[in-house]
């Protein structure tokens, strides 16, 4: 699997996902600077975490308008899988690849910690190595991860099986305390209609090495490599 990581000014977790992808696929991902006019051929496009353009104005807004995003949207429309993690989720949502928006955490504070996620579906290229209902532990690190969409959109997402992950308690149950950023219906990640675009706030890439304290992100990348080999 050849993946391409888009690097914006202010991206800062590009190396984290680079390392995770390299460990899973044995192949170095390409890092693509946002001003490069050509997006190389890739089996997977990743928009990494960070603070693209400082997250000034609105998280992800300026990067979403970057010329390379037109190319990313075209590839996504043609079926190339796109993964947006954290700031990447904010960017692809601002760019219209996914519905809704990410508001400030309900605490109005940045938070960095391990959270539990419940896998909502295993029927996608991103989650095939997990079981539906399985609970995994991965880190989050964001200030604006509070997923918002109107009720009709939320109903549609749920009806179409497009909720990928929810914040949950260690036993998989949903409660306010586990949903620390206040996301609508505890949503941590969503798919597009074809389930080839995933945006999520947590960082599975930071749970892929024994020294990182959790290996629960390994199946995420292993599944992708298997699906896109």
């Amino acid at each position, binding site marked *: 699997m050849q993946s391409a990581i888009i690097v914006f*000014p202010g991206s*800062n977790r590009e*190396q984290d996902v680079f390392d995770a992808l390299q460990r899973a696929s044995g192949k170095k991902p390409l890092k693509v600077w946002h001003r490069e006019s050509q997006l190389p051929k890739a089996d997977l496009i990743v928009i990494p975490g960070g*603070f693209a353009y*400082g997250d000034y104005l609105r998280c992800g807004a300026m990067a979403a308008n970057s010329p390379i995003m037109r190319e990313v949207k075209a590839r996504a429309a043609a079926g190339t899988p796109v993964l947006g993690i954290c700031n990447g989720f904010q960017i692809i949502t601002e760019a219209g690849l996914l519905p809704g928006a990410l508001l400030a955490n309900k605490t109005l504070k940045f938070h*960095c910690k391990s959270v539990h996620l419940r896998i909502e579906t295993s029927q996608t290229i991103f989650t095939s190595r997990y079981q539906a209902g399985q609970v995994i532990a991965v*880190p989050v690190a964001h200030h604006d991860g509070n997923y918002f969409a109107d009720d009709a959109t939320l109903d549609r997402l749920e009806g179409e099986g497009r909720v990928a992950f929810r914040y949950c308690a260690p036993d998989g149950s949903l409660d306010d305390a586990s949903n620390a950023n206040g996301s609508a219906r505890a949503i941590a990640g969503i798919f597009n209609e074809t389930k080839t675009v995933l945006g999520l706030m947590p960082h599975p890439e930071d749970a892929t090495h024994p*020294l990182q304290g959790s290996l629960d992100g390994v199946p995420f990348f292993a599944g992708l490599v298997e699906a896109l080999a």
Partner: protein
Amino acid sequence: MTERPSSSERPAGPALAAEFGLSAEEYARAVAIMGRAPNITELGIFSVMWSEHCSYKSSKNWLKKLPTTGPHVICGPGENAGVIDIGDGMAAIFKMESHNHPSFIEPYQGAATGVGGILRDVFTMGARPIANLNALRFGSPDHPKTRHLVAGVVAGIGGYGNCVGVPTVGGECNFHPSYNGNILVNAMTVGIAKQDRIFYSAASGPGNPVIYVGAKTGRDGIHGATMASAEFSEDAEAKRPTVQVGDPFTEKLLIEACLELMEGDTIVAIQDMGAAGLTSASVEMAGKGGLGITLDLDRVPMREPGMSAYEVMLSESQERMLMVLKPGSEDKARAVFEKWELDFARIGTITDTGRIILTMQGAVAADMPIEPLVTQAPLYDRTYTATPARAELRAAEVEAREPIAALKTLIACPDLASKRWIWEQYDHLVMGRTVQRPGGDAAVVALPDSAKALALVSDCTPRYCAADPERGGAQAVAETWRNITAVGATPLAITDNMNFGNPERPEIMGQFAGCIAGMRAACLALDYPVVSGNVSLYNETNGTGILPTPVIGGVGILADAAKSVGLALKHPGDTLILIGETKGHLGCSLYLRELLGREDGAPPPVDLAAERRNGDFVRAEIVAGRIAACHDVSDGGLLVALAEMAMAGGIGASLAAPAGIPIHGFLFGEDQARYVLATSAPEKVLANAAAAGVPALVLGLSGGDQLTLAGCGAISVGELTQLNEAWLPMYMAGQTPDGRR
């Protein structure tokens, strides 16, 4: 809204010099050097170069006493940051710096720009920053300003560090009324570089271009360096300059651009523009090279129209660097900075005249000799009086309280309460190499493409320093050494941040001298040299000084990151062993302060030989894989240490009662050089300890969900955790734990 004195129109002279913070004698010296009265720009340059902050005029004679060399020291104090050898051709580059006064005035921006400044000191030397730490000291929680200051400082540190993508992995946070009017915000950055790719600040090559890169210059923080060198008074509000605002996004670009340029062969010298901005950067670069410099100030990228030469030279706008390039490499360098969308301007030339000559709008704005500006800077041997020694306090003279109740009080007191509320606001995981996270003894950060890791910590116990500066100075160094040892790493070197009151008062200089003496002794005994540091004096408000606070930032190395241990109990049934001798020293302890409302007695003695022997033993046991968890015993004493291990692991322990010393001394005494180990191989560990002459005492076993003390009752780990975690979030929400406002 413009209360700013339009200083460009004021006649320069003794009156203005005094306003700029120069004494009459210093002004006379400036006139002598110039052979005439300096104009306002020149006077501004004298005032910042000769400020306490830049010249170290009160502290230099004392700093010389610190040991700064060692087999792995590549570059000690004198450059932007210290450099040590960490093997495999790699170096660790680190420093700590204060932003105390700005953070008191504007906590968010003050703290944020503090982080930005220390990052620049590290990457200007060619290092990629891999970790930040921060040592914070606030006033009493009851003081009306404290909550606002904590909220702003923490948000500012997070706001900057999170955005630049450098993990903030450690630090400390204490509260004491002596900081009510003068908080301490000390930030530390650690970076790594290839040893053959380290960049220094001495200019060379007359004719070489002087390049300005980064953000534009505005009227930010003019006279910040002199502000950091003057005592606060209530009217500080009125005098304050335009506060510097940090732009972490620009900093991130600057890091990437500088490191990209540093891969090539274009840079002769590079220096960040920190306190005193363009003035200190240009004077120091040319001065260190024994050369001169000319600057055309019209070419400086400016954010505001109509800035005077004085303002351009003294601006403390953030996110700016000055470089001297090799001839012919300007275009290559420009392309890099243009890629990162940063300003890039050739503003001058290195000369062989030994003078700094500034021109603006066709006129000479300043023309001064550099060498005397640097070498004839004032240097004071300030009078000092030693802090009177305090009587030792015997445990028998201290009231004994019921141990479990005392533990509950201690674990929830502001200094010992969990600081999770703080470090969860810091991205401590970005870069994916944080092995030991905040909340333990030292943070451990794995190195890229290597099995190795660095162990990082900051520490100081100001109440000990106030009671006995020499013991306190030694203790601060020893505690960082112990914290690094407790994760299994070998301590290598330190940086320091000397925060003290007004050096013109002999008792303050006495504290300074005492702390230096203690630090020196500990550094020598532990082979743990000082490679960089910072001094912040005049930390006083209306004549009341802070507790002497020499913060130590320690760096150690692990050959194998996977061998590091944390403090969390890992499994039930492990034997808990106390390493080190316990005499039950309660003087200056938290038990004394939090339970009995007393702060008297002498602090615990620091036996550096025992420190070294015990630490070397503990480290060897960890590296041999026999230790499941390790924690050093410090603030609060043994029972607090055990409770912290239990809470972190969610596993209880049962402990036997001690014999021979009063139980409150045993459980809450703060004797030094001690660790608690959890092991499944107790016989081997005890035998090795006996062989090494290290005191070792079996305390009991891990297991269950309670902390049980034979004969004294028990408490559930859940209740302890609740007490320990509740205080800070409740306090920040404006509540006391019992629900009152």
